């Protein structure tokens, strides 16, 4: 297991120069740091929050249920103090410290918006859902074919080798399904389906004649060891940090690799306010950092800069940069900086019960469910909306917390609850949101965060296309559950507010033309070629798949390009 010591503050000299600066240490920033340091660059990795050391700082990772003060329930105090976090599962007494506090980091909801952020070393790589799906070529082509927004400047073939590259290192387990809509990757052996899932998947395959597929999820949980990582122990406590390195996180994966090169300097508590831009060379020369502990401003110089500060924060840094030249900031001449906010809309689907299988069970807590890749608007089908959605879900036996209202108190109820209950399954749909120009973020004139920085104002909503899609998202789940043999099938729609998918995308999109996009096909800012944005901000459309694997691939691809360009002295 690896240890990492922080430099003390006085070892950081102002205007110290690096080959590269990476802003943000989450999934994308961790990859940028690994790739750039491994290629020999001296890298400064800046993180706005505190350090979280692998294993040592996973304080609740092995806490048994009886030591969890409220056994996972929320206190009135937590609910009062966290008006935003309380909107979803993220408000949890076991890892509350890893979600940004809305008092310190407020934002303004011009329209309802939920923004769940991880402000610490590792960012949300510690907390993510780990579902890792490639995009299909159809996803990259959709904007051009349908005349939506602008065309992606890249296609699947540009990204495919980088998907392979990051999958091998990150460790993605999954089954090869040979589906055009969900390309196979370099997978570790898949986690198996349980008895009910296996039979249900077979019924789906037969009924829909391969037009719909239930497959095992492809999580960034490893089923075989990788260097420094023991592998998944089937505890399903991933979001508390994994002492076994069972899932991909900055701490378990990219940071140790970057540290091992001897080329990395990690500086926590470093909020990047803006880039320092030289209009003569049309390059950024460095970054202006606000020390989150001392409130002092420090500057660092570098030849190249990777913005991986999370979708909206990377864009906010651009919006604060070079405002003397462009009032809206670096990249705003496109008219698209801060526009085209996307997410995945969800929180609806269906569930049902399976009779029988009382003599079947499973051992271990599998940290993934099933995935149902998109099947709508394919092969010539035209619904009353474009694009599509996928599902995540699975089947299991209920436990002691099930309702046994038919049983009386006393020994009968106790005995019943010590045995597993009936099988049931549920699926939640995740749908694509189109990139709408008028879904925006901008700076507030009045609200500031704890450090005096302008808060963001969110103005985004789903529109007719998504609302129409939601009918299918619910109805198709119910139909498939019935086909698969489930009874008492119920649909549900728990309501969606923008951002709840925690898949924020867009606001500094890639494109083919500086007049309509912020970044080119190599994630370079058109007006500052030594600045790369490789997190969710770069996305030109959103597809229906979980986006993090694509950020990893785009980051590794951009890092290789950047180092090549540096060597050619083009940057």
């Amino acid at each position: 297991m690896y240890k990492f010591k922080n430099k003390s503050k006085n070892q950081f000299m102002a205007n110290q120069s690096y080959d590269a600066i990476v802003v943000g240490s989450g999934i994308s920033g961790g990859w940028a740091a690994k790739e750039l340091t491994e290629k020999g660059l001296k890298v400064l990795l800046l993180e706005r929050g505190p350090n979280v050391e692998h294993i040592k700082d996973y304080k609740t990772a092995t806490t048994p249920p009886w030591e969890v003060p409220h056994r996972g329930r929320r206190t009135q105090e937590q609910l009062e103090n966290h008006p935003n976090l309380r909107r979803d599962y993220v408000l949890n007494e076991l890892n509350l410290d890893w979600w940004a506090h809305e008092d310190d980091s407020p934002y303004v909801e011009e329209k309802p918006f939920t923004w769940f952020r991880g402000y610490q070393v590792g960012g949300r790589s510690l907390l993510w859902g780990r579902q890792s799906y490639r995009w299909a070529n159809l996803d990259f082509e959709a904007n051009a074919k349908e005349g939506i927004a602008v065309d992606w400047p890249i296609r699947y073939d540009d990204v495919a080798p980088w998907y392979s590259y990051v999958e091998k290192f990150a460790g993605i387990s999954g089954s090869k399904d040979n589906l055009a809509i969900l390309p196979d990757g370099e997978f570790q052996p898949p986690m198996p389906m349980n008895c009910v899932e296996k039979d249900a998947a077979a019924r789906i395959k037969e009924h829909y004649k391969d037009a719909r597929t239930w497959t095992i999820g492809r999580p960034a949980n490893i089923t075989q060891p990788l260097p420094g990582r023991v592998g998944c122990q089937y505890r399903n406590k991933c979001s508390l940090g994994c002492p076994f390195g069972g899932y991909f996180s900055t701490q378990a994966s990219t940071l140790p690799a970057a540290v091992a090169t001897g080329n990395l300097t990690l500086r926590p508590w470093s909020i990047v306010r803006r880039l320092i831009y030289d209009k003569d060379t049309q390059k950024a020369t460095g970054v202006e950092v606000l020390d989150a502990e001392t409130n002092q401003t420090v500057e660092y110089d570098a030849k190249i800069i990777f913005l991986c500060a999370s979708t909206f924060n990377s864009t906010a840094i651009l919006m604060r940069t070079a405002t003397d030249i462009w009032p809206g900031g670096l990249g705003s001449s496109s008219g698209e900086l801060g526009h085209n906010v996307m997410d995945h809309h969800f929180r609806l689907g269906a569930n049902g019960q399976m009779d029988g299988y009382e003599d079947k069970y499973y051992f271990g807590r599998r940290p993934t469910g099933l995935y149902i890749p998109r099947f709508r608007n394919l092969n010539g089908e035209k619904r009353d909306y474009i694009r599509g959605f996928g599902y995540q879900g699975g089947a299991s036996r209920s436990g002691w917390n099930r309702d046994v209202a038919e049983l009386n108190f006393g020994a009968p109820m106790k005995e019943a609850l010590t045995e597993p209950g009936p099988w049931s399954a549920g699926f939640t749909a995740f749908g694509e949101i189109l990139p709408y120009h008028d879904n925006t973020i901008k700076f507030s004139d009045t609200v500031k965060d704890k450090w005096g920085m302008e808060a963001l104002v969110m103005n985004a909503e789903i529109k007719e296309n998504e609302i129409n899609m939601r009918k299918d998202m619910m109805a198709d789940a119910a139909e498939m559950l019935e086909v698969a043999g489930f009874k008492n099938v119920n649909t549900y729609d728990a309501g969606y507010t923008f951002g709840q998918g925690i898949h924020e995308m867009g606001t500094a999109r890639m494109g083919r033309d500086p007049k309509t996009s912020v970044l080119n096909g190599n994630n370079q800012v058109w007006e500052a070629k030594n600045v790369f944005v490789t997190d969710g901000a770069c996305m030109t459309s959103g597809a229906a798949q979980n986006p993090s694997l694509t950020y990893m691939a785009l980051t590794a691809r951009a890092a290789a390009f950047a180092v090549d360009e540096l060597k050619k002295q083009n940057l």
Partner: protein
Amino acid sequence: MVGATAILTGCAPEHQIEGLNFSPEDIAFLDEIGDTIIPETDTPGAKATGIGAFMVMMVKDTYDAEQQKTFVDGLNAIRKEFKSSNGSDFMDATSEDRLTYLNGMYDQFKTSKGEEAKAINMIKDLTVLGYFSSEIGATQALSYIEVPGKYDACIPYNKGDKAYAI
């Protein structure tokens, strides 16, 4: 001395919990209710897990004011009505009488969903939660496996095998 006088006259005013001031006697009362819902069998019952103190902590920390009032009013009502229908204090009654009474109340909840009956469902909910997530409940009544180390997707289940605690 009011209490002493009352006892002497055989006309004790019912003890009532005020606000959220649970006395040790109130916690003992909750322990007995919890142990009626989840009794000792071949594994310990809810009282052995300190269910009374757990319920009080959860009511104070996780319930809103309205839920707290429902819980306390309901608990006071159980104490009072048990005595008027059974003629003895709940604490002095047999476990059969306790069980019959609480099951009656739970039936009432299942059919009427009345305000007073809501409390019995709260007590049941906290008892089940507190018991099965306790060390005794998780490791004795259920099967607690901190580090499974593997995933077997499809294994036989024999009636009587324990469910997993987590």
